[in-house]
């Protein structure tokens, strides 16, 4: 062996030796998420705390854009063979992820294989039901669960002479008219997430179906039916109020939530997860209230359904990496940590113990805001119409529904035409999905 060969061999050995040793010591867990604002800080802090708590695994959170962007980035990465370990997927992506057997690692399997203590009964059933199979096997790990609430700017309501926080839709319309008269000319009331508010939550809250087969939970051969007279009446009311901006449309996503924080809209429906951002931006006295309902609908209000996102574990990783993911989930389920997360972010506690602890600590007496979504979710035992929903292609379908709502609000279609068209287009998409999901 010549001197040059020996030198080369030494160099190669050295390179591999040095490169391999840190990789052996710490296993990186990639976590792709979609959290912005105050909640982004919470995600980073969670990862930091977990990394400091042990030395075998390192969770690396990466912000991948809004919910649909994160999901698409994950799917594209999976196709390219480099999916992250953990991917945060919003609730409407559930059907798509569930049907992708082989691309995902079900959470109940992961926990069992990693030998981590895991009792599915410890989690709140209103939440885990959404992310479990009909047999009750948990497929994804609930992370940030929320529901839709009505955010109230108490200072402005007082100024406009609205004595009580409105409970029903007619009361909201009245309050909005008073607010408009008191100077809120561009916005009496509004909401983020158009389809989530006026179709999904609206249906559950009034105990009317969005689609057959328990809103798709009992099978992919579900058919949409949210063009009922009640849905039409509600959209018609919004169309009338949009004309003079007593109601003012705020788009399909959460981008316009700042209309509440800036004081422009004094009544604004959006996710309960808006709490962290509201605390840091709103310079007025605010609170959250349950969503309004029509008092002439029998049995309303029923119960709301959850929104937010869960963590999906992607397939094709090593056993050691899965062990790290499982440890991270155990870390997240810790009662104190869950209680603290809930109290800071406004997202729901995922374990019963964390909810009980927060109650026992007397937290809600001083801070009623984070309890509003819990009260909504547990208002009545869920029915076929309010257990949740599971529609394939739901990410794009929500946009299609919003398109039709927009057409009605812009006066291009009547409320009835718009909802009929939303149902017809949605059904076509469901049939396409049914063919691919086998």
């Amino acid at each position: 062996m010549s001197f040059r060969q020996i030198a080369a061999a030494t160099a190669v050995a050295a390179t591999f030796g040095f490169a391999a040793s840190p990789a052996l010591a710490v296993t990186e867990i990639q976590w792709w998420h979609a959290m912005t604002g105050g909640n982004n800080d919470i995600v980073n802090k969670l990862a930091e705390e977990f990394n400091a708590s042990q030395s075998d695994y390192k969770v690396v959170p990466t912000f991948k854009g809004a919910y649909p962007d994160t999901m698409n980035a994950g799917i594209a990465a999976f196709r390219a063979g480099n999916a992250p370990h953990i991917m945060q997927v919003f609730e409407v992506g559930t059907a798509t992820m569930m049907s992708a057997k082989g691309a995902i690692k079900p959470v109940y399997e992961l926990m069992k294989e990693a030998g981590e203590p895991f009792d599915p009964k410890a989690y709140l059933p209103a939440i885990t039901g959404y992310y479990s199979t009909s047999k009750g096997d948990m497929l994804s790990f609930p992370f940030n669960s929320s529901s839709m609430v009505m955010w109230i700017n108490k200072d402005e309501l007082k100024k406009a002479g609205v004595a009580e926080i409105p409970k029903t839709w007619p009361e909201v319309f009245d309050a909005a008219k008073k607010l408009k008269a008191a100077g809120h000319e561009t916005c009496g009331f509004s909401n983020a997430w158009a389809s989530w508010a006026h179709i999904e939550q609206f249906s559950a809250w009034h105990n009317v179906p969005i689609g057959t087969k328990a809103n798709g939970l009992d099978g992919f051969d579900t058919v949409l039916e949210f063009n009922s007279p009640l849905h039409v009446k509600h959209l018609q009311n919004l169309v009338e109020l949009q004309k003079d901006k007593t109601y003012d449309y705020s788009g399909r996503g959460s981008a316009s939530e700042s209309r509440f924080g800036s004081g422009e809209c004094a009544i604004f429906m959006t996710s309960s997860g808006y709490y962290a951002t509201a605390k840091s931006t709103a310079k007025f006295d605010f609170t959250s209230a349950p969503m309004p309902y029509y008092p002439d609908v029998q049995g309303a209000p029923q119960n709301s359904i959850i929104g937010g996102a869960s963590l999906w574990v992607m397939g094709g990783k090593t056993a050691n990496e899965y062990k790290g993911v499982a440890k991270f989930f155990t870390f997240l389920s810790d009662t104190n940590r869950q209680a603290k997360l809930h109290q800071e972010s406004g997202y729901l506690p995922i374990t019963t113990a964390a909810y009980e602890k927060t109650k026992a600590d007397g937290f809600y007496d001083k801070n009623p805001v984070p309890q509003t979504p819990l009260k909504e979710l547990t208002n009545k035992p869920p029915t076929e119409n309010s257990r949740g929903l599971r529609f394939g292609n739901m990410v794009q379908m929500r946009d299609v529904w919003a398109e039709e709502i927009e057409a009605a609000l812009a006066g291009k279609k009547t409320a009835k035409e718009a909802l009929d068209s939303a149902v017809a287009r949605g059904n076509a998409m469901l049939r396409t999905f049914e063919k691919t999901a086998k």
Partner: protein
Amino acid sequence: MEKSVVFNGKLLPYLLLAPQLAITLIFFYWPASQAIWQSFLREDAFGLNSEFVGLENYQALFAQPEYYTAIGTTVVFSSLVTVLSLGVALLFATQADKNLKGASAYKTLMIWPYAVAPAIAGVLWFFIFHPTLGTLARPLRVMGFNWNPMLDGTHAMILVVMAAVWKQVAYNFLFFLAGLQAIPKSVIEAGAIDGAGPLRRFWTIIFPLLSPTTFFLLVVNIVYVFFETFGIIDAVTAGGPAGSTTTMVYKVFADGRLGGDLGGSAAQSVVLMVIVIALTAIQFRYVERKVQY
């Protein structure tokens, strides 16, 4: 007898062409053939199972009324963007070609928008004209103009057209300016001596001599507006409100990425490819005849 140089080698010309051919094969023919193949498949978003379905994706596509709406929107959007971005760029280029103080500074500034990524350009315009947050939307509303691109389809269209034009003007400006500077001054001066005014000099001398540049830009701009504008549309309006800014290329993006319907999306991109190839062929066949090289 005349002496001419003849290269006998067969290999050298092919070698010299090879890099360009390789790029065309890898970046055009290969993806295009993939798109055509995929348009005959039905596949789930993750690519876990796929099935050959023949022309089913195309049948489903042409049965959608929204697709015809998108074709109409595309015609409006592409004509507006092409005409405006060429027109505005030509106007700016003729002005910048004059002897001005600090002309090179203007010229540099004019080129900047081209370096901005489409999505970022979209976000900028989204915020400037956002009905409640926008710095320019507020004065519009104060003046009593009910500016609302979130619900008014025409307003939304104006907004995406402005954003798309703004980005493309820089590119067109650069080529027009180079074209103008290549026109011999003597020809223009001769026209002036013969008594032609500035407008007449422009239409009878400059514009015809500029026609190779204009033709090139027309082809490039049509390709731009058909294929590259979905980033801007996504950031500004996401195809809304009520589909009034959903162009064909945006629909390809929305159905493929958001809907996970890759077969249907591929079928749309094949249709789009056929249209653009046809348009380009027509331009070379008919418009190029009027070009004076």
